[in-house]
């Protein structure tokens, strides 16, 4: 027994690395005795493509490179990386080639001993099985399982309902209704006609529609109530309610099940759930008296991210909430500017572009926007919109949204033009694409209306949607660009990518991560004429149109969620430390579990890039 203790160092090494960390203690105690130690000098071949591995290797020190059949680097692993496991489990030859990137010491377990161990411990087989679509999804679930309960984002509406609804018949008088409200100490009543929800009566209705309007309090409630109020089903998430309240600027939402009211949810109920609640931030922004106040409130975005990440909200939810705040800032700045400059001389629409247009905003995102003017606009109106654009851009900058270095902003005269000019611009991108133009133009295909004349935006979007789906050459260029940059698979276990500058030894999780999924989703969406801008929705539309397999679509959505969450959590950490948020993640911020899933997310992206190339043949592109 004393002998096993001698190999304790090797045992503890194995105990610290998956999948061996899953083995029972006594099995780990005995394992070192089955091993050999080998050494590979940097640059030497460890496992050739097409070779049947004779043993499982575990990197003890140094690093190995894995190249796939196309000669592409798909993995670079340091201590703990296993070589040959997948081929041994599949009973196949190795599809990859593994070589020593650094001088590398490995532990080796003979194939026969590995088989015996695997038969007794299926966890090993699972670990080395090829990745399946479940894995990333499971990662998201595991991540969430450790989170605190009770956050606004995961609470269901039914859990917020505190009492059965206080109702009144539509035939009752306003006076009777007011008496019920006073008795029951509520600020609103649900009005029933034949047992079904017909309307809602609130404190505000009594003030504005009865008292201020000088109406007789003896009239039936049905005459002053708000008819057919918006309701929510009991299984909706509190997040949905929150968004509903914010976007409609209302405070009460009836909970309705099969047409019958079962309760009421109010903004106050949500307040009890949440302290750093974005609802209140958005509300405050909407009421901000001036640009300074907007800037101050916008500066609290970091806290919002920190608190949402703490509650383990999904990246999708966080992106939507940050978008909501960003939209509120932009709208308020436009209202303030209009108030100062006077009524717009011709109708216009303010367009959001890029990540906020996709409802995927993170921290430290550039401001990307454009102005779409009515075709009636002339040279005499130029000054008004130039000032409007400059004021809003300056306001956004003060609120923490840096200017776009690529001039994708309404301050750029080329991005402040009438509808016909925008149509012409899109047509020229679509009909005469060049690689540079496609790269530059892609951000304009993520476009969403924020403020002003929505009709103008709809006209432009219809035009873009109709012409993009048949623009074969443009789509092929866009697909080529989307597949041009493989995910940075070299980023693993302390090994690095960014080799120079302030961000060396880190991974650009935006450009090399979720950004790659965004590009893939964009090509698919444009090709199938999807009006969506959100990447997850776009992927769903692509699956629906049959251009993307259901499995790959689900994998890509999981990959986007995982990569985006890693990014947001990184930014939340920076907020906590009081440093400016960026997209550069260092390897030691990730657990080995997360590194594994990062690796799988990257593999999914690579597969999707490959499939994209086949669907939009690159040979069509000169």
């Amino acid at each position, binding site marked *: 027994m*004393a*002998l096993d203790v*001698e*190999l*304790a*160092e*090797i045992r503890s090494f194995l105990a610290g690395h998956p999948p061996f960390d899953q083995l029972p203690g006594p099995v780990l105690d005995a394992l*070192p*005795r*089955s*091993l*050999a*130690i*080998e*050494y*590979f*000098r940097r640059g*030497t071949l460890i496992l050739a493509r097409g070779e049947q591995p004779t043993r499982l290797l575990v990197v*003890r*020190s*140094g690093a190995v490179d894995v190249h796939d059949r196309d000669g592409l680097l798909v993995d670079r692993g340091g*201590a703990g990386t296993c070589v040959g496991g997948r081929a041994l489990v599949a009973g196949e030859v190795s599809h990859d080639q593994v070589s020593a990137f*650094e*001088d590398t*010491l490995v532990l*080796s377990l003979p194939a026969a001993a590995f088989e015996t161990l695997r038969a007794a411990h299926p966890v090993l087989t699972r670990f080395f099985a090829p990745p399946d679509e479940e894995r990333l999804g499971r990662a998201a679930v595991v991540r969430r399982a450790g989170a605190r309960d009770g956050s606004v984002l995961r609470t269901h509406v039914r859990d917020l309902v505190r009492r059965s609804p206080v109702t009144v018949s539509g035939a009752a008088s306003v006076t009777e209704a007011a008496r019920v409200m006073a008795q029951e100490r509520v600020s609103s009543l649900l009005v029933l006609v034949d047992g079904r929800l017909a309307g809602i009566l609130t404190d505000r209705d009594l003030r504005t529609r009865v008292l201020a309007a000088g109406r007789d309090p003896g009239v039936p409630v049905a005459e002053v109530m708000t008819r057919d109020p918006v309701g929510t089903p009991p299984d909706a998430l509190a997040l949905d309610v929150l968004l509903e309240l914010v976007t409609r600027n209302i405070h009460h939402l009836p909970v309705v099940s099969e047409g019958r009211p079962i309760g009421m949810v109010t903004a106050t109920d949500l307040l009890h759930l949440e302290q750093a609640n974005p609802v209140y931030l958005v509300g405050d922004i909407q009421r901000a008296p001036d640009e300074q106040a907007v800037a101050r409130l916008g500066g609290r975005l970091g806290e919002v991210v920190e608190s949402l990440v703490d509650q383990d909200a999904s990246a999708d939810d966080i992106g939507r909430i940050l978008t909501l705040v960003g939209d509120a800032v932009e709208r308020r700045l436009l209202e303030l500017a209009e108030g100062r400059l006077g009524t717009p001389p011709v109708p216009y629409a303010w367009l959001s572009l890029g990540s906020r247009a996709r409802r995927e905003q993170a921290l430290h995102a550039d401001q990307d926007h454009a102005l779409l003017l009515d075709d009636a606009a002339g040279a005499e109106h130029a000054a008004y919109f130039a000032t409007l654009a400059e004021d809003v851009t300056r306001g956004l900058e003060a609120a923490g949204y840096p200017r776009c270095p690529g001039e994708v902003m309404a301050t750029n005269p080329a991005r402040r033009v009438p509808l016909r000019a925008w149509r012409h611009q899109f047509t020229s991108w679509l009909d005469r694409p060049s690689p540079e133009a496609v790269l530059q133009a892609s951000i304009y295909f993520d476009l969403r209306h924020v403020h002003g004349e929505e009709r103008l935006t709809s006209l432009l979007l219809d035009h873009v949607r109709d012409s993009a789906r048949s623009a074969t050459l443009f789509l092929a260029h866009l697909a080529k660009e989307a597949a041009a940059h493989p995910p940075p698979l070299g980023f693993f276990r302390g090994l690095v990518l960014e080799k120079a500058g302030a961000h060396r030894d880190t991974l650009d999780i935006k450009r090399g991560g979720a950004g790659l999924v965004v590009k893939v989703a964009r090509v698919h969406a444009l090709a199938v004429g999807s009006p969506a801008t959100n990447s997850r929705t776009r992927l769903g539309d692509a699956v629906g149109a049959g251009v993307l397999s259901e499995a790959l679509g689900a994998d890509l959505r999981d990959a986007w969620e995982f990569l985006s969450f890693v990014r947001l959590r990184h930014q939340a950490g920076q907020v906590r430390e009081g440093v400016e948020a960026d997209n550069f993640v260092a390897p030691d911020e990730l657990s080995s579990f997360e590194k594994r899933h990062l690796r799988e997310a990257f593999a999914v992206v690579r597969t999707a890039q490959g499939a994209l190339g086949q669907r939009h043949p690159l040979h069509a592109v000169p």
Partner: protein
Amino acid sequence: MRSAPEGRTPAGRLRLLAVDVETTGLDPARDALLAVGFVPVDGTRVDLRGARRVVVRHDGDPGPSVALHGLTHDVLSDGVPLEQVLAELLAALAGRVLLAHHAPLEIGFLDAACRRLTGSPLRTPVVDTVALQRRLVTSAWEPEPAPGSLRLWAARRRFGLPDVPAHDALSDAIACAELYLAQVAELTAAGGGQEPTLSRLRATGGWRSALRRRWR
């Protein structure tokens, strides 16, 4: 008993036994052997199945360095008689080359034990990783190794081999064996892919003795 490997055996086919001893001091005539650790090396593979650490039985007080090795009197009185330790070691060494880091210490103690218990000296070819390291770190321009650079842990660091906190006969024997793998890999690369032979590995001197051989 298997015959000793021939001088022209290439490293890839060479069988060795990495050995390390724990003693109460450096003088085989006065100091006691406390434990022996060894692990076989087959070509370029360290075989942990054959890894052993054997504690020598001592009933009396073997001296103050006991504390250094963490070998308590209880452990030592639980040990194996020296005859048996030697028999186990010699069985494992049969047909193999003795590999050690600073081999004179291991040879000194094992040879003294052999002479005392069997009446004959220890006969084995020897490869010393200190000598190999000296050859790798010195050149015509750097005739002397940097102070301390030949010590086991410094030598390992040069090859990026991991630091191991433990310090007993077996972990040091394994550490020596790993160092040997790295040294052979470097010598093979330096020789244009040609593996060094046993004779080449046993040549003790650095560049000076190589020069001397050439001019002799």
